[in-house]
Protein backbone atom coordinates (compact mmCIF):
# COMPACT_ATOMS: atom_id res chain seq x y z
CA UNK A 1 0.00 0.00 0.00
CA UNK A 2 2.60 2.55 1.04
CA UNK A 3 4.77 1.54 -1.91
CA UNK A 4 1.87 2.40 -4.23
CA UNK A 5 1.60 5.90 -2.73
CA UNK A 6 5.37 6.18 -3.09
CA UNK A 7 5.25 5.30 -6.78
CA UNK A 8 2.40 7.80 -7.37
CA UNK A 9 4.34 10.61 -5.65
CA UNK A 10 7.52 9.71 -7.54
CA UNK A 11 5.67 9.79 -10.88
CA UNK A 12 4.05 13.16 -10.09
CA UNK A 13 7.41 14.59 -9.03
CA UNK A 14 9.24 13.44 -12.16
CA UNK A 15 6.43 14.68 -14.43
CA UNK A 16 6.60 18.15 -12.86
CA UNK A 17 10.40 18.15 -13.16
CA UNK A 18 10.14 17.37 -16.88
CA UNK A 19 7.49 20.07 -17.35
CA UNK A 20 9.65 22.63 -15.55
CA UNK A 21 12.60 21.81 -17.79
CA UNK A 22 10.44 22.03 -20.93
CA UNK A 23 9.41 25.47 -19.69
CA UNK A 24 13.07 26.34 -19.18
CA UNK A 25 13.75 25.52 -22.83
CA UNK A 26 10.58 26.99 -24.42
CA UNK A 27 9.76 30.26 -22.65
CA UNK A 28 11.15 33.48 -24.10
CA UNK A 29 13.05 35.47 -21.43
CA UNK A 30 14.88 35.10 -18.10
CA UNK A 31 11.96 36.01 -15.84
CA UNK A 32 9.48 33.61 -17.46
CA UNK A 33 12.07 30.82 -17.42
CA UNK A 34 12.69 31.49 -13.76
CA UNK A 35 8.93 31.22 -13.07
CA UNK A 36 8.54 27.84 -14.77
CA UNK A 37 11.81 26.44 -13.47
CA UNK A 38 11.47 27.49 -9.86
CA UNK A 39 7.85 26.49 -9.29
CA UNK A 40 7.73 23.18 -11.11
CA UNK A 41 11.17 21.89 -10.16
CA UNK A 42 10.73 22.85 -6.50
CA UNK A 43 7.41 21.02 -6.12
CA UNK A 44 8.66 18.10 -8.21
CA UNK A 45 11.78 17.59 -6.11
CA UNK A 46 9.74 18.01 -2.91
CA UNK A 47 7.39 15.25 -4.11
CA UNK A 48 10.35 12.96 -4.91
CA UNK A 49 11.80 13.55 -1.44
CA UNK A 50 8.39 12.92 0.16
CA UNK A 51 8.14 9.60 -1.67
CA UNK A 52 11.28 8.48 0.20
CA UNK A 53 9.13 8.50 3.37
CA UNK A 54 6.67 6.02 1.83
CA UNK A 55 9.34 3.74 0.37
CA UNK A 56 11.62 3.33 3.39
CA UNK A 57 9.31 3.95 6.38
CA UNK A 58 10.09 6.27 9.26
CA UNK A 59 13.86 6.09 9.88
CA UNK A 60 17.04 8.12 9.44
CA UNK A 61 16.69 8.38 5.65
CA UNK A 62 13.14 9.75 5.66
CA UNK A 63 13.82 12.25 8.47
CA UNK A 64 16.70 13.63 6.45
CA UNK A 65 14.44 13.76 3.39
CA UNK A 66 11.86 15.82 5.32
CA UNK A 67 14.58 18.24 6.49
CA UNK A 68 15.77 18.50 2.89
CA UNK A 69 12.21 19.42 1.77
CA UNK A 70 12.21 22.24 4.34
CA UNK A 71 15.58 23.55 3.14
CA UNK A 72 14.52 23.46 -0.52
CA UNK A 73 11.22 25.24 0.15
CA UNK A 74 13.09 28.05 1.90
CA UNK A 75 16.15 28.41 -0.32
CA UNK A 76 14.69 27.96 -3.81
CA UNK A 77 12.39 31.05 -3.88
CA UNK A 78 15.11 33.16 -2.25
CA UNK A 79 17.62 32.18 -4.94
CA UNK A 80 15.04 32.92 -7.65
CA UNK A 81 14.42 36.35 -6.12
CA UNK A 82 18.15 37.13 -6.01
CA UNK A 83 18.72 36.02 -9.61
CA UNK A 84 15.76 37.99 -10.99
CA UNK A 85 16.79 41.13 -9.14
CA UNK A 86 20.38 40.78 -10.34
CA UNK A 87 19.18 40.21 -13.92
CA UNK A 88 17.04 43.34 -13.82
CA UNK A 89 19.79 45.46 -12.29
CA UNK A 90 22.40 44.24 -14.77
CA UNK A 91 20.22 45.61 -17.56
CA UNK A 92 18.37 42.60 -19.00
CA UNK A 93 15.14 43.93 -20.53
CA UNK A 94 11.83 42.10 -20.42
CA UNK A 95 10.60 40.11 -23.42
CA UNK A 96 9.31 42.32 -26.24
CA UNK A 97 5.72 41.09 -25.75
CA UNK A 98 5.60 42.27 -22.16
CA UNK A 99 2.80 44.55 -21.06
CA UNK A 100 4.31 46.88 -18.48
CA UNK A 101 7.41 47.25 -16.31
CA UNK A 102 6.77 49.30 -13.20
CA UNK A 103 10.15 48.40 -11.71
CA UNK A 104 12.11 49.99 -14.57
CA UNK A 105 9.87 53.08 -14.47
CA UNK A 106 10.40 53.57 -10.75
CA UNK A 107 14.12 52.91 -10.88
CA UNK A 108 14.71 55.28 -13.75
CA UNK A 109 12.70 57.94 -11.89
CA UNK A 110 14.87 57.41 -8.79
CA UNK A 111 18.09 57.63 -10.78
CA UNK A 112 17.10 60.90 -12.47
CA UNK A 113 16.41 62.76 -9.21
CA UNK A 114 19.90 63.07 -7.64
Amino acid at each position, binding site marked *: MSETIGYILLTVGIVFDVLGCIGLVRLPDVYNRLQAGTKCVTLGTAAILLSVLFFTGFNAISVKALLCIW*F*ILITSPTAAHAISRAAHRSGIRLWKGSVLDRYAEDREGAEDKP
Partner: protein
Amino acid sequence: MNVYIGLLILCIFMCLYRVGRGPTAPDRTVAIDILGTLVVGFCAIWSIITKRDLYMNIAISWSLLNFIGSLALAKYLEGRGFDE
Protein backbone atom coordinates in the same frame (compact mmCIF):
# COMPACT_ATOMS: atom_id res chain seq x y z
CA MET B 1 13.07 2.84 -11.45
CA ASN B 2 15.16 2.87 -14.61
CA VAL B 3 12.44 4.90 -16.36
CA TYR B 4 12.51 7.54 -13.60
CA ILE B 5 16.29 7.86 -13.77
CA GLY B 6 16.11 8.14 -17.56
CA LEU B 7 13.56 10.95 -17.34
CA LEU B 8 15.70 12.83 -14.80
CA ILE B 9 18.70 12.51 -17.10
CA LEU B 10 16.52 13.94 -19.90
CA CYS B 11 15.75 16.91 -17.60
CA ILE B 12 19.42 17.40 -16.90
CA PHE B 13 20.18 17.47 -20.63
CA MET B 14 17.48 20.11 -21.16
CA CYS B 15 19.13 22.23 -18.45
CA LEU B 16 22.52 21.72 -20.08
CA TYR B 17 21.04 22.88 -23.39
CA ARG B 18 20.01 26.11 -21.68
CA VAL B 19 23.44 26.46 -20.07
CA GLY B 20 25.09 26.13 -23.47
CA ARG B 21 22.69 28.16 -25.59
CA GLY B 22 21.44 30.76 -23.06
CA PRO B 23 21.74 34.15 -24.75
CA THR B 24 22.60 36.03 -21.55
CA ALA B 25 24.47 35.30 -18.32
CA PRO B 26 21.33 35.24 -16.06
CA ASP B 27 19.87 32.51 -18.28
CA ARG B 28 22.87 30.34 -17.53
CA THR B 29 22.62 31.13 -13.82
CA VAL B 30 18.96 30.05 -13.76
CA ALA B 31 19.83 26.80 -15.51
CA ILE B 32 22.66 26.08 -13.05
CA ASP B 33 20.35 26.74 -10.08
CA ILE B 34 17.72 24.34 -11.43
CA LEU B 35 20.39 21.76 -12.25
CA GLY B 36 21.37 21.73 -8.57
CA THR B 37 17.77 21.08 -7.49
CA LEU B 38 17.54 18.21 -9.98
CA VAL B 39 20.67 16.65 -8.50
CA VAL B 40 18.95 16.63 -5.09
CA GLY B 41 16.08 14.65 -6.63
CA PHE B 42 18.59 12.28 -8.21
CA CYS B 43 20.21 11.62 -4.80
CA ALA B 44 16.74 10.91 -3.33
CA ILE B 45 15.96 8.29 -5.99
CA TRP B 46 19.38 6.71 -5.49
CA SER B 47 18.78 6.48 -1.73
CA ILE B 48 15.44 4.73 -2.40
CA ILE B 49 17.21 2.13 -4.56
CA THR B 50 20.15 1.43 -2.25
CA LYS B 51 18.35 2.12 1.10
CA ARG B 52 21.39 3.92 2.54
CA ASP B 53 21.30 7.35 4.19
CA LEU B 54 24.65 8.39 2.74
CA TYR B 55 22.93 9.82 -0.34
CA MET B 56 20.52 11.93 1.73
CA ASN B 57 23.53 13.55 3.44
CA ILE B 58 24.84 14.45 0.00
CA ALA B 59 21.40 15.82 -0.96
CA ILE B 60 21.15 18.11 2.09
CA SER B 61 24.63 19.54 1.73
CA TRP B 62 24.15 19.88 -2.04
CA SER B 63 20.93 21.88 -1.62
CA LEU B 64 22.55 24.31 0.86
CA LEU B 65 25.73 24.75 -1.19
CA ASN B 66 23.67 25.26 -4.35
CA PHE B 67 21.79 28.08 -2.61
CA ILE B 68 25.03 29.79 -1.57
CA GLY B 69 26.44 29.37 -5.08
CA SER B 70 23.35 30.93 -6.67
CA LEU B 71 23.51 33.90 -4.30
CA ALA B 72 27.19 34.40 -5.11
CA LEU B 73 26.50 34.28 -8.87
CA ALA B 74 23.61 36.75 -8.45
CA LYS B 75 25.81 39.17 -6.51
CA TYR B 76 28.48 38.84 -9.16
CA LEU B 77 25.98 39.63 -11.93
CA GLU B 78 24.76 42.66 -10.06
CA GLY B 79 28.34 43.94 -10.01
CA ARG B 80 28.55 44.69 -6.31
CA GLY B 81 30.75 43.54 -3.44
CA PHE B 82 29.95 40.57 -1.22
CA ASP B 83 29.57 42.67 1.93
CA GLU B 84 25.85 43.43 1.77
